[in-house]
C-alpha cells in the first residue's frame, strides 16, 4: 500500500534522531487512517498514483481522529514562521489542546522537527502542482464533455454496436486525462450494471514506429492466444473478423487513439481504414480519437460522411480564467493549508487564459511562483509572509510570458546590434518585406562609416547574420550565393527602436536613412 510507505517516509524525514516521540503518533495515526479511507472511497483509482497518497492521508486526518496530534502540529506551525506558514482551513478549526503544552518541554525537538519538515511540505505542494499528478477526486470543469463521452460509450456498450468519437481541443485542455477517467468509469459502470466489461486499449500514435502498426496492436488485443501466422495483414484480419458473425469477438473493445493526426499519411489510408473498422456489421470497436485539429474528420475523411458513419465530435474548449483558478484550487484542496493568495491565483488564471488557456502552462507558472517564494524565504528567513503573493506570481508570470526580445537585443554584441539597426532602417521606409544579404551588408557598412566604427568583412558579416537568424531575429533564405540570400526581419522593428531608445549611438544608427 503506497500510503503506508509514504507515511513512514515522511515520518522518517521529520524525525532526525530523537523526536521519535513526535513521529510515532503521527505515523501510527496515518496508518489508521488510510485503510479506512480507502475502503470508503468509491474511486478505486485514487490509489493508483502514489503522488497524492500523502495528501489523502492528511485530508482524512481531521475527521477521523481526536484533535490532539494535529493540533500539536498546528501549534508548531503557528509559532514558527521560518517555513511556509500554513493557514488552516476553517473546517479544521479545533480548540487548542493540552497535548501541545505537554509537548512544550520538548521545545527544541519540535523546532528541529519543523525545520526538517519544511522541504517535505514544499515537496507536497510541488507534487500537487505537477503535470503528471492526476487529481484525486475527479476532474472539475470537464463534467459536460466527460458525460457526453460517457453516454456515448454506455450507449455503444448497451447496444453492442460499434461507434466512433472524435475529441479535439487545444493542448493542455485535459483531453487525454478526461478520456482516461471515462475509460475507468465505463469499466465501473459495466461492473455495476452487470454488463460485460469492455476491454480498453490506449495507443499514443507518436510511439508507433509505423502508422499501420496500430492494426496489429488492436488485433493483438482481440486474439490473445492465437498467433498471427496467416498471410493476411492485420488490417485484413480485422476486417474479416468483423464481417462474419461467427468470427466476431464477444467483448467490446474501447480503443483510445491519442494524437490521431500522426496517423495521417499521404493517402490517408490508415486513418480511413481505422474509422471504417467501426462500420462493419459485427464490429465491436468503440473508437475514440484524440487530436488538436477541430476539423480532422471533415478534412481527411469526407468519405465517411457518405457512409453515414461520421464520428461524433466532442470539442474541449480552452479553459477560461474561472476554470483555471477552479482547477488549481481543486488541486490544492488536498493540502490542509493555503498556498496561494487568492489574488495571485486570479492573476495567474487571467493571464494564462488570455494567452492560451493551457493548463500545463498554468501549473508551470504556479510551480515557478512557489520556487520564487522558496528562494525568497531562503534569502530572508525572518520575513513574515506565509503565502505565495501577487508579487511572486508576477515574477513567475513575467518569466513565462514576457517576450525576451528586447532583453536579448540589449545583450547582443555591438556589431550584431548594428546589423539589426541596418535591417530596421531598410524596412522602415519602404514597403518591402525582404532584402538580400548583399544589400544589408551595404547598409551596414554605411552605418559603420557614419559612426566611424571599422566594419567587419563579408564573411564575418554573414556569420553574424547566421547567428542572428539562429536566435530568431531574422530569417535567412536559401541561396547558392551568400550575397543573394533573402533576409527578412522576424521581430517587430518597433522592438528594435524601443530597445535602443536610450542609446545615443544607436539612435544615430537608426536615423540613417539613405544607403
Amino acid at each position, binding site marked *: 500500500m503506497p500510503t503506508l510507505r509514504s507515511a513512514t517516509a515522511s515520518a522518517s524525514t521529520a524525525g532526525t534522531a530523537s523526536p521519535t516521540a513526535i513521529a510515532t503518533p503521527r505515523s501510527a495515526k496515518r496508518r489508521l487512517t488510510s485503510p479506512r479511507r480507502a475502503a470508503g472511497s468509491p474511486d478505486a483509482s485514487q490509489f493508483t498514483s502514489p503522488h497524492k497518497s500523502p495528501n489523502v492521508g492528511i485530508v482524512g486526518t481531521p475527521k477521523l481522529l481526536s484533535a490532539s496530534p494535529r493540533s500539536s502540529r498546528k501549534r508548531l506551525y503557528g509559532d514558527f514562521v521560518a517555513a511556509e506558514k500554513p493557514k488552516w482551513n476553517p473546517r479544521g478549526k479545533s480548540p487548542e489542546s493540552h497535548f501541545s503544552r505537554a509537548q512544550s518541554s520538548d521545545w527544541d525537538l519540535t523546532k528541529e522537527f519543523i525545520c526538517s519538515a519544511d522541504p517535505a511540505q514544499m*515537496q507536497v505542494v510541488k507534487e500537487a502542482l*505537477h503535470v*503528471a499528478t492526476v487529481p484525486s477526486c475527479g476532474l472539475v470543469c470537464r463534467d459536460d464533455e466527460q458525460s457526453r463521452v460517457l453516454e456515448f460509450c454506455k450507449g455503444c456498450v448497451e447496444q453492442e454496436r460499434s461507434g466512433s468519437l472524435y475529441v479535439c481541443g487545444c*493542448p493542455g485542455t485535459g483531453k487525454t486525462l478526461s478520456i482516461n477517467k471515462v475509460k475507468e468509469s465505463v469499466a465501473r459502470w459495466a461492473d455495476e450494471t452487470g454488463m460485460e466489461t469492455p476491454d480498453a486499449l490506449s495507443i499514443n500514435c507518436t510511439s508507433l*514506429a509505423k502508422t499501420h502498426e496500430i492494426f496489429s496492436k488492436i488485433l493483438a488485443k482481440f486474439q490473445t492466444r492465437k498467433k498471427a501466422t496467416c498471410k493476411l495483414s492485420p488490417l485484413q484480419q480485422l476486417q474479416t473478423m468483423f464481417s462474419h458473425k461467427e468470427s466476431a469477438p464477444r467483448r467490446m473493445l474501447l480503443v483510445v487513439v491519442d*494524437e490521431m493526426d500522426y496517423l495521417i499519411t499521404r493517402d490517408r489510408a490508415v486513418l480511413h481504414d481505422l474509422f471504417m473498422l467501426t462500420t462493419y456489421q459485427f464490429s465491436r470497436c468503440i473508437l475514440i480519437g484524440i487530436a488538436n485539429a477541430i476539423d480532422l474528420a471533415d478534412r481527411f475523411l469526407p468519405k465517411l460522411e457518405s457512409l453515414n458513419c461520421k464520428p461524433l465530435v466532442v470539442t474541449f474548449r480552452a479553459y477560461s480564467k474561472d476554470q483555471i483558478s477552479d482547477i488549481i484550487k481543486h488541486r490544492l484542496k488536498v493540502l490542509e493549508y493555503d498556498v496561494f493568495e487568492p489574488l495571485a491565483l486570479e492573476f495567474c488564471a487571467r493571464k494564462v487564459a488570455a494567452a492560451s488557456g493551457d493548463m500545463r502552462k498554468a501549473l508551470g507558472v504556479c510551480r515557478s511562483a512557489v520556487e520564487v517564494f522558496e528562494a525568497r524565504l531562503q534569502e530572508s528567513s525572518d520575513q513574515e509572509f506565509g503565502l505565495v503573493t501577487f508579487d511572486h506570481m508576477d515574477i513567475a508570470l513575467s518569466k513565462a510570458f514576457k517576450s525576451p526580445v528586447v532583453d536579448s537585443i540589449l545583450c547582443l554584441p555591438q*556589431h550584431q546590434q548594428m546589423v539589426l539597426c541596418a535591417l530596421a532602417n531598410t524596412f522602415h521606409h519602404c514597403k518591402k518585406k525582404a532584402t538580400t544579404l548583399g544589400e544589408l551588408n551595404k547598409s551596414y*557598412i554605411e552605418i559603420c562609416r557614419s559612426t566611424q566604427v571599422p566594419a567587419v568583412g563579408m564573411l564575418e558579416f554573414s556569420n553574424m547574420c547566421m*547567428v542572428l537568424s539562429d*536566435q530568431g531575429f531574422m530569417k535567412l533564405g536559401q541561396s547558392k550565393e551568400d550575397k543573394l540570400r533573402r533576409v527578412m526581419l522576424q521581430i517587430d522593428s518597433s522592438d528594435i527602436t524601443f530597445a535602443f531608445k536610450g542609446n545615443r549611438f544607436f539612435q544615430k544608427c537608426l536615423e540613417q536613412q539613405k544607403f
Partner: protein
Amino acid sequence: MDLSATPSRSKSGLRSSPRKPVAAPAVAQMDLSTPSKPTPRRKPKAPPVAAPMSPVTPSSVRRSSRLLETPTKVTSETPVKPTPTPKRKRAAPSPSPKTPTQSEPKRQRQRQRQRQQPKKPKKRAYYRKVVYDGGEFAAGDDVYVKRRDGAESDAEDPEAEECRVCFRAGAAVMVECDVCLGGFHLRCVRPPLRRVPEGDWACPYCEAERAGKAIERPKPPEGKRIVRTAKEKLLSSDLWAARIESLWREPDGIFWAKVRWYIIPEETAAGRQPHNLRRELYRTNDLADIEMETILRHCYVMSPKEFKDASDQGDDVFYCEYEYDIHWHNFKRLADIDDEPETKEDPGDEPYNAGNDYVSDSDEDSEYDEEEEPTKCSSARTHQSHALAANLRKGRTYGLQKIGIRKIPEHVRCHQKTNLEKAKATLLLATLPKSLPCRDKEMEEISAFVKDAICNDQCLGRCLYIHGVPGTGKTMSVLAVMRRLRSELDSGNLRPYSFIEINGLKLASPENIYKVIYEQLSGHRVGWKKALHYLTEHFSGGTKIGKQANQPIILLIDELDLLLTRNQSVLYNILDWPTRPNSNLVVIGIANTMDLPEKLLPRISSRMGIQRLCFGPYNYRQLQEIITSRLKGIDAFEDQAIEFASRKVAAMSGDARRALEICRRAAEFADYRVKQSGHTSVNRGKNVVCMGDIEAAIQEVFQAPHIQVMKNCPKFGKIILVAMVHELYRSGLGEVMFDKLAATVLSWCHVNRELLPGYDTLLKICCKLGEGKIILCEEGTKHKLQKLQLNYPSDDVTFALKESPDIPWLSKYL
C-alpha cells in the same frame, strides 16, 4: 531474474583467519541461455577452520606479522634459484607454495635492509618476495591497492564482515545473500535459519524488493557506522585490485612494485552487464609502478575453474575470466591468451629471466640486484610511478581517472616549457579549465533544477531548455554541474541517479536516440523501434529497464533542434515522458535557437513546460575574465592585449571560443617572434604577447582572404581591378563591359609606358579573376561583350591596392 544463478556462498563468522572458510562459489555463468543450475556445494563451514593450504596468515595479523613463525622453515641459505617462480601463475591463491622457503631470520634481515641505506646506491634490487608492513607479497600475488589517500580506505580495515541485521561480527555462521552480497547471521534472519540453505538464497530484504515491495533495511544502531569490507570498497571502486608482476627496491630504499590492474565491470567501456557476476573483475593490460606502501593486503582473483573449486576462501575472492584491453575496449578470454605464445610477455617479468642475476651473492638469498639497463634513465624511472596510485611522497593523487591515461613521451617532459608555450597549451579549446568563471548564476540555476528533481524521494519529471549562441559555455556548464553532482553523489549526499548525455549531431538519424537511451539504460543494443517500445513501457510505468529501474534519469540532449523530424514525433515522445506519472525522467535540452519552442507544434511546446535558461553572449569583461583565469600563473600576456582581444571579440560575436583562438594564435606569433630573435636573455620584456601580436591574430582571423588575394595579384590583374573600380565609379553602374575595360587598361598602360598587353591576355586575366570570384563575369563565349562585375565592395580594392610597389602610378587612379 537472472540473479537466481549467482554463485552462492555462506560466510563464516570468524574472519580472523585469513582464508575464510566459505562455501562454494558457483561459476554459473549468468547467461540467460545457459540453464542456471542450483549450486549444491553450499556447505556451511565450521567457522574457525584455518585454511589447510595456507600456513602463512599474512592478511589479518599483518601489523604484527614479524612475530609470526613460518612453520616450515628451510635452511636460510637456500637460494631461490632452483625453484624459479612461475611467472604466469594466474590468480595464485597466495601465499605461493614457495613461501616455506622464506625463513624467519632472513625475513628479519630483509626488514632491516629496508631500513638500512642500501649498499650499492646505484643499483635497483629485485626481489621475488617481499615482506612489507607485515604482509608477505610475492610476484604473482593479487593485492588490494589504495586508491586515494584520504579516502577512508586505510582509516579502518575490517577483516570481518558485520551482520546486516545485528551489526555485530560474531563467531556465528553467516550466510551471504546472493543479491546484495550482505552477510547475515543465521539466527538474525527472519525466520531464523537452522543451517545454510541449499541452492540460492536471497535475504528477505532483497526478496521483498524483488517482489516490488518497499521494505526498510535495518539501520545501524546509534553511533555505529556501517564499516565496509575491502571487498565492498573494491566493488564500489574505492579500492583497486592489482596483480604484482615484480618487486624491487629503488636505490633510495623505497620498495616498488610493478602491478597489473584489475578493474571492476563498471569501469569498462561497456559498463556492468547483466551477465557479470557480483564478484567479477577484469584483468587489464595496463601496468603501472606503484610504491609498496599503497598495497593494502592480499585478495584472491581466480580463474573460473579455481573459483568453482574454491570452497572455503574468504570474502576477498574474486572471479576473473577475461582480459580487458584498455585501449581498444575489448575483452579476451584469459584461457585464449595463455594459449598464445609468450610474445606479449610483460616487461615486468624480464628482470626475472635475466639468469645472470640469479647467481648473485648467496647471502642475500632471495634478493638479487640487477645492473640497471643503460638505456633507461634512472631518474626518469624513479618518477614514473603510476600517477594515480597513492604514493609515499605526497600522499595524494590527482584526479579520479584510473586507466587509459596517455603517457607523455620523455623528451617532451624533459623540455622546460616557456611561459608562452604553457599559455598556448592552456588556451587550447580542448583544455578543460579548472574553473568556469562568469557562468555562476546559470550553473546555480541548473544545479538547483537538477537537485530539485532528484533530491526528494519522489522524482518529478521536468524539462529545461537551455539556449544561447555558440561559444557561450552551455554544454560546459551543464557538464560541470553534473560533475559536481557526481562528486556529491560519491560523498553520499545525493540519491543515485543515472545520467545520459546525447549529442543530436552524433545521431545518424533522430530516431536513433531511442536506441542510444535504451543502450545506456540496459546495456543492450536493439533497433530503435524496439527501443521505443521498451522506453514507452518504462516511462509509462510498465516493465522497467535495467537494474536501477527506480533511479531518476537525467537526460541531456545537446543540439536538441536536430531531433526535429517532419512530424516531430521524436521530440514529442521525449518531452512527453516527463509528464507521465512516475517517469523519473528529467530532460535538459540545449540548442542555439531562442525560438525553438515556438517553432514546435503547440502540443510539444505545451509539454516542454516553461523552464528556460538563456546563455547570452559574453561581454568583454567576461571574456577578459575567462582568458585571465585560464592564464592564471602564466605570465605571458600583457593586460592590454587581453583586453583588446576580448573587446574585439565581444563587439562582434561574444564567442569565447573565438577569443581563446585569437589569444592562442597571438601567443604563437609571439613565440615565433621570440624564437626568431634568438636567445632572449637581452630583452626579457618582449617575451610576452603584446598588442601587436593580438592585432596580427585578429587580422588573420577576421580579415577576409580576398584582400590578400588582391594584394598578390599579378600586375595586369591589379591594373584591371583598379580600372574596373575607375570605370564603375565613372559610369555609376554596377557592371562594366569588357571592351570598355580593356580600352581603359590599354590607355593607362600607354600613358604610363607599361608593356602593352594583348587583348586575349587581358581576357585570360579576367577569366582568372573570375574563377577566383574576385570579379563576376559572364561566360567567356561573349568575348569582348561580356559584362564584368566586382564581387567585393570597391573600397576593399582601394584598400588592398593603395600601395603596390611594382606599379606606383596605380594609386593616382584610385
